[in-house]
């Protein structure tokens, strides 16, 4: 295996790992705000790493440029979308879930 191939495999593996984290987070976390944490961060990184792998696999050419464009786009839009959704929820007055113990320092 060439170094590039190793990098591709490593990036893809990392991407899948963070996508798993995102999926588990979306299923497991208690309310929509915490879930959108998972959606905005882990999923973005998962997607970005995997797209990086795809970009490397294309070699250096127009497709790589396109993949990088896609990557940047995901990077910008995912947090924005998460923000828009949670803001909509916040405006509707959905209270965030908190741990039971109150009155922390």
């Amino acid at each position, binding site marked *: 295996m060439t170094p590039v191939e190793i990098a591709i495999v490593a990036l893809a593996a990392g991407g899948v790992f963070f996508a798993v984290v995102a999926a588990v987070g979306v299923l497991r976390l208690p309310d929509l705000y915490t879930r959108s944490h998972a959606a905005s961060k882990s999923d973005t990184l998962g997607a970005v790493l995997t797209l990086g*792998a795809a970009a490397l696999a294309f070699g250096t050419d127009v497709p790589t440029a396109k993949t990088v464009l*896609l990557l940047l786009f*995901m990077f910008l839009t995912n947090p924005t*979308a998460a923000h*828009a959704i949670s803001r909509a929820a916040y405006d509707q007055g959905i209270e965030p879930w908190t741990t039971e113990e109150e009155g922390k320092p």
Partner: protein
Amino acid sequence: MSELSPLVSDVLVGAAGAFAVLAVVVLYRVARGPTMQDRVIAVNVIGSNTVVIIALLAAAFGEPGFLDVALIYALLNFLMSIAISKFTVERGGII
């Protein structure tokens, strides 16, 4: 186009498969809710997974044309989230 070794191509297809499985798993959150925003978040995650799947398949099969599909899908996915958030908010301006 560089030629990918079969192994790398397999890895990419495998990763695409993993993303597909994750998208199906996240469908549970879409079905379950409970609020509309939960569903939107889940659909958004599925959407970005789809974009990644398309890009991975494009790389694995050496079909750069798929990338345009992925780009448009990413645009639509973002628009979907923004549009739905917008519909649920009374006051103007969402971002």
